[in-house]
């Protein structure tokens, strides 16, 4: 047995011994707002390096946004407009149409002079904070397998996602909140469902916890309308009395004590968690900043404001899906209208988030990621749409130790495949873990006969993206 293996076993044994440590809420009773004293108390593995990023806010544009119409300006598309694609192109649907130029105008912005289309006027103001990854690839044509690839590093179900790995590696930053939170449009959830934020074989506390911008932010948070707070408090007192009798009769069993604490935390969460969603005390300026005061961007803006508050309070990984089963970025037809609407919903909130983080001095320690599961083809579909392109698409990152104001990687002149600095999802994952201070090679978990990891040796940290 290798030394590494032995040390991993020791870690897992330690984990077993202090099961109490795993997960949020274990020490309980620390106050929700601004709690950080317990940081690291339940970190399963302590890493010597400290990353710049303390948390991640991942804006997942579900359905496959068209980078060619947003950030990756390809003038050659004008020249080739309405002509057949030279050579062969792989699409999901047969019979690809002719090449389609972007219906939107591009302009260069900021000191970096990076291009952004007219769809994202507010995001464009922040290009100097952003690193664009213009040659991403995930090699999976279908939405759900591609979503799994982007989240979990493999195109099928059964592996933990990046958020779970980050939570596992960093431990909780706040005892009263989950370390990995997921938000999605309450109207329709993304396809692929709960598997997208699954901890799979990692310990349960690393599971993504869905948070809703509604009266009940966490499932089962709200009491039945027939049960009052005082009667539940009475219930809790009785329960804990019983549990203590039981624990006294069954001494030296840490799990029993952990469970006692989990009830205290849960009871308290009923009061504290809604504060995260409550935007009534926010100033008009804040609401305006996040676009909450406009109908189109109200939902997404509220979610991003929640995300900022969570990041501030120690939540490690916050993933927000924009677009679900419906109303998503999958513009096979009518791209111009659809993308215009989707950008209206997201432009102000994203710009607001970046600005807010910056104002508060949080951008350096908060990594913001934007992207979908793939991009879209230069060829048209149904005359005015685009098909899926998993070979060369755009994502971007900002803050958290990322080099600002750069464009990394390039696709061919038509924007189909990478010609320079391709970024695979494995590279992306390795880089994100690095920014969080985690080494993708030593962040492993033993399962199914070997040390499993997110990257599995298939990717590397992209040094050029580090500030």
């Amino acid at each position, binding site marked *: 047995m290798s030394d590494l293996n032995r040390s991993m076993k020791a870690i897992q044994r330690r984990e*077993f011994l202090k*099961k109490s440590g795993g*997960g*949020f809420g274990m020490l309980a009773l620390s106050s929700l707002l601004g709690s950080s004293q317990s940081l690291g108390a339940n970190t399963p593995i302590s890493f010597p390096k400290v990353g710049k990023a303390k948390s991640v806010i991942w804006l997942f544009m579900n359905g496959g946004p068209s980078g060619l119409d947003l950030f990756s300006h390809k003038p050659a598309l004008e020249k080739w407009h309405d002509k057949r694609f030279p050579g062969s192109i792989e699409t*999901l649907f047969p*019979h690809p149409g*002719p090449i389609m130029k972007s219906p939107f105008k591009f302009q260069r912005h900021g000191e970096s002079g990076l291009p952004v289309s007219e769809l994202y006027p507010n995001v464009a103001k922040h290009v100097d904070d952003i690193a664009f990854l213009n040659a991403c690839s995930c090699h999976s044509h*279908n939405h*759900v397998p591609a979503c799994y690839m982007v989240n979990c590093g493999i195109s099928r*179900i*059964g592996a933990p996602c990046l958020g779970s790995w980050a939570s596992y590696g960093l431990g909780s930053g706040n005892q009263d909140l989950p370390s990995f939170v997921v938000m999605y449009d309450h109207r329709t*959830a993304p*396809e*692929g*469902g*709960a*598997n997208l934020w*699954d901890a*799979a*074989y990692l310990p*349960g506390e690393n*599971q993504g*916890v869905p948070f809703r911008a*509604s009266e009940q932010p*966490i*499932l*089962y*948070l709200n*009491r*039945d309308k*027939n*049960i009052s707070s005082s*009667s539940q408090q*009475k*219930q809790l007192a*009785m*329960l804990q009395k*019983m549990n203590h009798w039981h624990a006294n009769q*069954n*001494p*030296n069993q840490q*799990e029993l004590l952990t*469970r*006692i604490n*989990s*009830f205290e*935390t*849960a*009871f308290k*969460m*009923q009061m504290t968690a809604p504060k995260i969603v409550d935007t009534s005390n926010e100033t008009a300026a804040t609401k305006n900043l996040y676009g909450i005061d406009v109908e189109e961007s109200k939902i997404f803006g509220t979610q991003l404001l929640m995300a900022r508050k969570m990041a501030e309070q120690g939540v490690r990984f916050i993933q927000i899906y924009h677009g679900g*089963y*419906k109303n*998503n970025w999958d*513009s*096979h037809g009518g791209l111009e209208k659809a993308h215009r609407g989707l950008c209206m919903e997201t432009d102000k909130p994203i710009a607001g988030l970046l600005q807010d983080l910056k104002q508060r001095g949080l951008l350096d320690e908060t990594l913001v990621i934007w992207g979908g599961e793939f991009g879209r083809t230069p060829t048209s579909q*149904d005359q005015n749409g685009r098909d899926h392109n998993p070979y060369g698409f755009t994502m971007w990152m900002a803050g958290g130790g990322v080099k600002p104001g750069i464009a990394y990687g390039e696709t061919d002149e038509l924007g189909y495949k990478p010609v320079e600095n391709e970024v695979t999802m494995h590279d992306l994952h390795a880089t994100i873990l690095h920014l969080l201070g985690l080494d993708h090679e030593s962040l492993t978990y033993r399962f*199914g*006969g*070997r040390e499993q990891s997110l990257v599995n040796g298939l990717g590397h940290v992209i040094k050029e993206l580090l500030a």
Partner: protein
Amino acid sequence: MSAKKSKTTKKHGKYRALRLIVLGCAAQAIGLLLFINWFENDFSKHCEDVTEIKHGELIQREIVKATEEKSERVLKLLSTLSREDRVTGREREKWSKQIESSTLRYIANLKQTKPDSISPHSFVKYQTTNLSSKLAGFESENNATEDASLHWSLKRVSRPVAPIVAIEFKQWCKNPIDQFVLDKMLSAGLAPNPPASQARLARRLSYDLTGLPLTQVRSQYWSEDRSQDPQTTISYRNYINKLLDNDGFGEHWARMWLDVAGYADSNGYEEDEIREKSYTYRDFVIWAMNNDLPFDEFTRWQIAGDELEPNNAMAVAATGFMTTAPYNTFRPQESERMDELDKQVSTYSSAILGMTVGCARCHDHFYDEISTEEYYRMVAIFSETERTHAYLNSESGKSYRKYYDLVKVRQDELDEMQYRRLREDSIADLENFTEEEKNILRKPVDPEDLEQDRLISICKRCLDFNDSYLDEDFTPLPEDEERYEKLKAEVHYYKRLLPECPPQGLTLHGSKISKTAILENGDLKNKDSGDLVGPGFLACLTPGLDNWNDDQWQRWAPNESEPLPRSALANWTTDTTHGAGSIVARVIVNRLWQQYFGRGLVTTAGDFGLEGDIPSHPELLDWLAMELIEHNWSLKHIHRLIITSATYRQDSRVTLNHMELDPENIYLSRFNSRRITSEVMRDSMLVAAGNLNPTMYGPAVMPPIPRDAVFNTEKGPEETWPIDYEIDREALWRRGIYVLLRRTMPVPVLKLFDGTDGSFSCQKRKTSTLPTQALALFNSPFVTRQSRFLANRILEAESEPEQQVQLLVRLTLGREATSSEISNFVEFLSEKPAQTEYRWKEKNLESLCQVLFMSNEFFYIN
């Protein structure tokens, strides 16, 4: 996604073929029946005593009711329903699928079938006739002394001698298990815990054997004294036998195997469709566990039951094991087929062989002697198989099929006609197209015709039809009219002749011998350059064989003239002399051990390879494996050995000495207390509330979940999964194993408590302790509603607070209440709320019931 939307713009007809079957099936509408059922109040009686649950007759009763009383009762019911209830009734009907009469017959059959009534074991036949001659040369190579340096799990299993124990511990030991355990325990400086009290042990046994709580509290459960009158007392062994014979045993232990098999009721991925008839595999496992189907037969059937015993419905249903892998149905790609094959091979090898073969997909296994070539030989065994809905009984299937085909061939022709009509209408309606262009589109599709290709790319969406566009009736094109009339008449004629549809199940099918390319790095791009290999198994588990060629597998084929790879794999797997039988026996006894003690003798239950853990008690493991093999692979024999051992009967108390010397309890000097699983939690609450519906087998149920928890809502939450808790009644209060498991949307209460979602082969349930679990116990409608039912049950039985709390403790914790509990609980009940509420006493009792449901004692077996 948007493409899919257009697909569903047209309504019905999607499940055309299915509808056809249903039509032919003279379907007995049982949706209404369940509706009636719900009005019956006699269910609470079922759960009086766990050992007396009567699972039988229920279905027959339903059938009788259906035919005799249906119309009358429905009329009566409808007249007595309030308006609100009628709405609920409709909602109910929507979710309680009509159960076909063939399904009911299938369930009734399942209950009567016993392994004994099945033809003699195929393997026995094969061993006596073929094996000795075929493996003659093989044998001699094989007799060479086994390499001592072999990894422990690859060695052939033999029976070790149980260590002799010191005289003062002779009394303690109940069977050889205890001798093995004691030996190690004493050398670690530990001594056994005292035995658990009868009350504690009775509860433990009830949970461990049936997954159901103890519901009858007695002062004595069995007699330790053999001299007492056997007429009035019952021995420990008989007590255990009653539990082993309980139908709940199979339902509980099947869950363990289904976890390992990665079973779920949906496909996963984008569409995540519910799998029709996937439950026949689940039912097979329950049936096999209850009837103690020998584990070697159980294993072989799961691999190739359809080939080994094509006329045995249970053997055919068993192949469902190979269909559990998730798969994508929305424009699937070749790589996804490879993923599915990988899941099949990996699940087989991890579940049954305890080997992690999946690593060899891309490279030779780093640790174990498994080459990429061997991996692709295993893939070749399954590459030509397919999932299919097979008739579980091939005879009645054939006669049904004859008429079905007569209908189908005509219906297909009618469908083609309809497609022509749709296409023509669509082309005629095209705007901005010249008549000339329209004529090009009318021609058959020709990939070489660039002009046609261009036109198609523009209007493809309007010409892309699938069966969701088909209607029952249509007007054919003029040239088709004559043929249309004739076909319609014939379809009508043959449909009348169609017999009742025999039961079907989701099974594996296909026996072709094929070759597969070895893919370098597991990448399909390397398909053309990879060597082609035929079927083969693992050399490291085949003593005396180092390399496989394309034909060696045939040595295990039962039929020489027509060798079938899957049958051969099945035989090789359980072959204790020349194949993997030794490791198979070790792996399964270890799984049973893990369920009882919370920790396997090998902690990596699915990995016995070099990277897996070494066994804590290797001799005990081998002894148990030999016991299994020599007792005709009877799992119940192993269960009996374990639970009659003194090791199992120890108390669970943890002392400081334990904490210091053996915190993980590797040396088994105490019983490990354990949290109950999510299904057991659900079942226990239902039992306590008097609500558990003991109906066995058949289609899964979909209990309501909160609206917030419904995903994939293409059709809106109301159409995806029931969300109205008013419909959560008897028909849905079946055991957790019958709750539909949808991969992208597992039922939240079950998932929260570490239930599986079938995304991988689960070797052992996690036990996380989280505040979100506590929230679910506080606020989930399931828990609050069952608390209310429990309170009502208690109120009906007892009127005095003292008696009420005593009954409550008995029903939830399976013991008598202590005096301090009684006084505390009575005080809780009598405490008036600040503002006097309506029914405050009842509410206090409901609240207290919930406290008991949430308590640590309720959740832990000790």
